[in-house]
């Protein structure tokens, strides 16, 4: 399987609309100051990779974008994340409503074990009491989007746990797509998958960026280079550098970025 390569990425992009505008974002766990004054514009309909050594705050940053960070006891957030002209930390914004627009995929595939494949895909809708006009169409559309339909169309009533790890992760992505978000956050989505499953999921991300804004935390620099259009390098809670991916990997401005991407530390 040939890894997808973004042809246009060689040319610097002049004007991409930002989907999320992050301003002076700070996150704390109790007394621990996890990320400091992050300011960045996440471009629309692009894949943005977030890289950096363990504990650098990249997952915390991601979890601040759909307000999952504040669910941890003792966690606090300061700063602004503007989406469609509204600060998501505004008091009038309900985090539950926000999360329907900003979906999330986790490191470990986590289909609901008590539900069938079909029920898993629809879970975000049924649990929210949404009346679905044509559930079968939603199931087929989202499973086709994640290239799982042909593999599971005859066993939709089996448990989601019966699938392989890579299939489970694609099922979880389909579950997110069914809620129709515009942004999808991916927290090391391939780290529990084998190389073949990883290649399939990466291909999927490449297709999804036609319609969705993706932000992906990854430990794997080759993956960031393969899949992403933009890369943010985090180090010790700071955003060191943010640029188009080819530039981060071939011609970074900061020496710390260069040291990390060339494998001198991390």
């Amino acid at each position, binding site marked *: 399987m040939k890894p997808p390569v973004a042809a246009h990425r060689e040319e610097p992009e002049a004007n991409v609309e930002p989907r999320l505008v992050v301003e002076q974002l700070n996150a704390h766990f109790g007394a621990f100051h996890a990320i400091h004054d992050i300011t960045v514009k996440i471009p629309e309909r692009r894949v943005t990779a977030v890289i950096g050594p363990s504990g650098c705050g990249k997952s915390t940053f991601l979890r601040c974008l759909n307000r999952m960070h504040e669910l941890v006891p003792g966690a606090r957030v300061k700063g602004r994340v503007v989406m469609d002209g509204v600060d998501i930390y505004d008091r009038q914004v309900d985090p539950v409503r926000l*999360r329907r627009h900003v979906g999330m995929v*986790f490191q470990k595939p*986590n289909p609901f074990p008590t539900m069938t494949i079909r029920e898993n895909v629809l*879970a975000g809708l049924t*649990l929210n009491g949404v009346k679905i006009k044509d559930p079968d169409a939603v199931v087929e559309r989202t499973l086709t989007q994640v290239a799982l339909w042909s593999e599971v169309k005859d066993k939709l009533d089996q448990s989601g746990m019966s699938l392989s790890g890579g299939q489970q992760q694609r099922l979880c992505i389909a579950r997110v797509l069914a809620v129709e978000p515009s942004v999808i956050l991916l927290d090391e989505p391939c780290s529990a998958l084998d190389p073949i499953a990883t290649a399939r999921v990466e291909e999927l991300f490449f297709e999804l960026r036609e319609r969705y804004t993706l932000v992906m935390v990854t430990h794997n620099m080759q993956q960031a280079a393969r899949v992403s259009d933009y890369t943010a390098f985090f180090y010790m809670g700071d955003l060191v550098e943010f640029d188009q991916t080819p530039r981060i990997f071939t011609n970074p401005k900061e020496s710390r970025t260069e040291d990390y991407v060339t494998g001198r530390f991390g």
Partner: protein
Amino acid sequence: MSNRTHLLVPAEGERRRKIRSTLWLGLCGLSAVVVILPLLSIFLYVVQKGAAGLSLSFFTELPKPVGEPGGGMGNAVVGTLTLIGIASAIGLPIGILSGVYIAEVGRGKFADWIRFFAEVLSGVPSITIGVFVYALVVVPMKHFSAFAGGVSLAIIMIPTVTRTTEELLRMVPPHLREASLALGVPEWKTSLFVVLRTAAPGIATGIMLAVARIAGETAPLLFTAFNNRFLSTRVDQPIASLPVQILTYATSPYQDWQQQAWTGALVLVVVILVLNLLARLGTRTRIGAKS
């Protein structure tokens, strides 16, 4: 040369050590056997004594007056089922929801206190609970009732259900919670429809054990449900139950009543045994489904 043979020569005190080891191992084995013995002998004894009175009429007929042969404990069987029903209707929702509260909603001191109170409550002697419900329900109502019996059994049941629910909810992997929240599902729906649903088979097992526990309770019923010679399903009237009927009949001077008490004991033991077996079976299939 001595280097080679010293492994073959017994060291000093080796024999004594081996004897001590055998003794202790034997003691452990013996204790293990003693654990099985009571249940086994109770069961055999009850079968031996009670099987003779076992017939369909035991379950369908009402007690006959002294001296008249035949009759059954139909009223007590129906009464026990009614009491379990009332106790479950009160105790299960409270037990399960409080377990959800401790595990999912309330974090910190308050939840710790509830857990502590539940633990102490499960240790309170059941006769104390009977006296308490007597004062709380029977005295204001001015007579014994199935409702009062159900309340006392519910109080016995609640701490078990609360603790089982809490423990099993904690076993649900946190990433499922997060997955649901990240789909924009509110916390209360996540708790009830994702976390509780995932833990449901285990909680069902805990409920069965709690039911088995209250099915045999006698002491609290003496002050609350009392007894009834007739078939009754009325919530506001005294009601018969197998344990109380066994007590009454076993302490009576009449031989055919004593025989019926044994049969009643047999039925009760079998019911509790079956509930326990079902609970075990539930646990096994749950583990089987996971792997």
